[in-house]
């Protein structure tokens, strides 16, 4: 066969339908998520004329190459390597959170391994940790180094790396510190790429079930925009299946007393953040030199952690608006609770998120009133899927239903929060109409869509050229922040999402296993949901209008500031 220059044997195999097994390799094509250290040695193949076996992931095709991908020598080597991995693995698959979704498990099945001949040897002992967001169970680690690549190259956070050497190697923060003592942003992308159960989310499902079954508690659900485009995959539905209606039914079946929608919070975020953008722009145009531009979005909790840790000198730039989930929590526990006559301590607000950093966000002291958090805790899309399976709910055959009113009404602008560029587009729809007083000629802002790491666009607002920038992954955010620090940034609004492709590729979503098509399908579904909504601009959401009329007054009012805005802290490690 002929392949373009630079094609690896692994890629060439894919082209002709030969799936060479790998563990360490991951390449989320079109994004910067890439790891090919050639360290697991499971993809070895026999190349005629070569003395030893070649790793297919790191060997390029050359002219007249003859390759055997399934010779006895190759299969014996793969089997022995897999047996070696198992010899330093707990092999507690039955109770492992990654069971049935584990790449090592799948590989062992594929290699038909029935014995573990090297299992009487010493096992590695590693430090484990349970944070608010991430659980580290490092004796399960197989040293594929995907987490290290993502943490360093994709997120530029640089927390994870290999420490010590030989059999004592472990992947951990420098000096084997705990995550809580590092710059970890809890973006969870290490979890999203971990092939085994070494890095997983902190599980809150048992706590949730305890609250649901407690008759003294009123439990309300708020699923994030991205959840409905990923959840179906856990039940065998094809990627990109929109399950909004089934999601609402499933949450009710699980026993949630009220099923609302974080999308409502997203619309509210646009109202507040949009007003903030307009406020700063107005001051800027009036010649106020002290106004901080660009204004940056603050919906992504990992991004918030990132700038609190790395750019404490620039904390005035991001919008002070809380994330949609926290806005929702604050409104649910004030406006809605008062309306319903439910005391705050009886109310449990649970967010269902594609995100791990949201779990951490719930624990922030500034989001608590007398120790009672606005959002009690957050579960991931995967945890929700586990709950649904445990409750014998036949998800695929569920009837569809709507979210409850009034905190369940949302617009297309909120739906697109789940993808990179979505918050910017939603904000532009509102900012344009409020600023110009005109109706948008076209609702879609295609210029901010796509998966490019950093995207720029100029929007004409009645002659004023609004320069916007959209970035996803924290390494791209770092580029922007470094420019800002150096005074070289020429934008008015910047959106940052920590996860590659935004929330649809969040660390709490069903595992993509390195398949970019899954993320693309979710992205298409998300834009389709937006197109299908009767209202596609946040400021036209009738329940949002009602909320402002009955309770908040207007965006950036004193009450809004009190409930919907936050402040940031210098969390740099001194």
């Amino acid at each position: 066969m002929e392949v373009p220059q630079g094609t690896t044997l692994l890629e060439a195999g894919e082209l002709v339908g030969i799936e060479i097994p790998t563990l360490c390799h991951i390449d989320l094509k079109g994004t910067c998520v890439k790891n090919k250290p050639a360290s697991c040695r499971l993809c070895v193949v026999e190349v005629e004329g070569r003395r030893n076996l070649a790793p297919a992931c790191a060997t390029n095709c050359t002219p007249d190459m003859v390759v055997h991908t399934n010779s006895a020598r190759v299969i014996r080597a793969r089997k022995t390597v897999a047996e070696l991995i198992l010899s330093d693995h707990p092999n507690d698959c039955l109770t492992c959170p990654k069971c049935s979704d584990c790449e090592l498990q799948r590989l062992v099945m594929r290699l038909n391994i029935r014995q573990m001949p090297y299992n009487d040897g010493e096992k590695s002992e590693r430090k484990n940790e349970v944070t608010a967001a991430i659980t580290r169970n490092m004796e399960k680690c197989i040293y594929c180094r995907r987490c290290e690549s993502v943490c360093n190259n994709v997120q530029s956070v640089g927390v994870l790396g290999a420490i010590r050497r030989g059999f004592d190697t472990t992947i951990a923060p420098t000096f084997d510190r705990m995550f809580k003592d590092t710059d970890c942003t809890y973006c969870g992308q290490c979890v999203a790429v971990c092939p085994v159960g070494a890095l997983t989310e902190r599980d809150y499902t048992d706590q949730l079930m305890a609250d649901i079954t407690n008759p003294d508690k009123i439990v309300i659900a708020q699923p994030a925009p991205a959840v409905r485009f990923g959840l179906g995959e856990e039940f065998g539905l094809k990627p990109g299946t929109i399950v909004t209606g089934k999601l609402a039914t499933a949450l009710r079946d699980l026993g949630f007393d009220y099923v609302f929608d974080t999308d409502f919070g997203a619309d509210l975020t646009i109202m507040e953040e949009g007003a903030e953008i307009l406020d700063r722009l107005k001051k800027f145009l009036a010649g106020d030199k002290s106004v901080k531009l660009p204004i940056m979005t603050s919906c992504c909790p990992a991004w918030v952690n990132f700038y609190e840790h790395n750019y404490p000198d620039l904390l005035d730039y991001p919008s002070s608006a809380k994330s949609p989930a926290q806005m929702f929590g604050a409104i649910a526990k004030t406006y809605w609770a008062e309306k319903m006559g439910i005391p705050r301590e009886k109310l449990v607000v649970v967010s269902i998120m594609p995100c791990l950093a949201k779990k951490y966000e719930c624990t922030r002291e500034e989001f608590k009133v007398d120790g009672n958090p606005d959002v009690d805790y957050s579960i991931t899309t995967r945890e929700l899927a586990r709950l649904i399976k445990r409750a014998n709910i036949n998800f695929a055959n569920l009837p569809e239903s709507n979210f409850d009113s009034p905190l369940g009404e949302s617009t297309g602008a909120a739906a697109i929060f789940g993808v990179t560029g979505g918050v910017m587009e939603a904000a532009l729809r509102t900012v344009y109409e409020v600023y110009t007083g005109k109706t948008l000629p076209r609702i879609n802002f295609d210029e901010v869509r796509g998966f490019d790491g950093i995207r720029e666009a100029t929007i004409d607002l009645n002659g004023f050229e609004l320069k916007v920038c959209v970035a996803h992954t924290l390494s791209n955010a770092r580029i922007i922040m470094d420019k800002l620090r150096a005074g070289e940034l020429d934008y008015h609004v910047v959106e940052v999402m920590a996860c590659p492709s935004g929330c649809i590729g969040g660390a709490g979503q069903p595992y993509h296993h390195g398949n970019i098509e899954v993320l693309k399908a979710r992205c298409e579904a998300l834009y389709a949901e937006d197109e299908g909504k009767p209202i596609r601009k946040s400021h036209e959401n009738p329940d949002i209008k009602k909320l402002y009329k009955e309770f908040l007054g207007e965006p950036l009012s004193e009450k809004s500031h009190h409930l919907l805005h936050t402040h940031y802290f210098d969390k740099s490690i001194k």
Partner: protein
Amino acid sequence: MIVMDEDDCMVSVAKFYLEFTVGESCGKCTPCRIGNKRMLEILTRITEGKGTMDDIEHLKSLAATIKDTALCGLGQTSPNPVLSTIDNFYDEYVEHVKKHTCRAKQCKALLTYTVNPEKCKGCGACARNCPADAIMGDVRKPHVINPFKCIRCGMCQSRCRFDAIHVF
């Protein structure tokens, strides 16, 4: 090529080299990080008389795979001492496993120290110097070594002036 005499145990030699590579392994690739450690564990078992014939087969298979799959030169060459000693001195491996003996008298766990009663004068030098208090006997009468207490340090042999301590 390395030249050694009959005082060198081939299993111990392989183990010695492997201790070096296990210590030097960077830990990046699976075969070197875990494979060499497992080979060293097997060799240690054999030198302690706890090896099985399966262990020898596992050694061969591990060595071949590590040589074939390790990422760098260190890993690719680390099994050579194992492969070459198994190829050329297979009998010594089998002796360690089946007879629990080490002909070079290097594998301490496999050695048995005894007193030859015909040569022993009962001077007590061995008993006085034994750090494990493993030797008993009356003065001017042949002494006896308690094999359960003996730590195979060789002290008795070095102190005996009558060549009465035998090792096998």
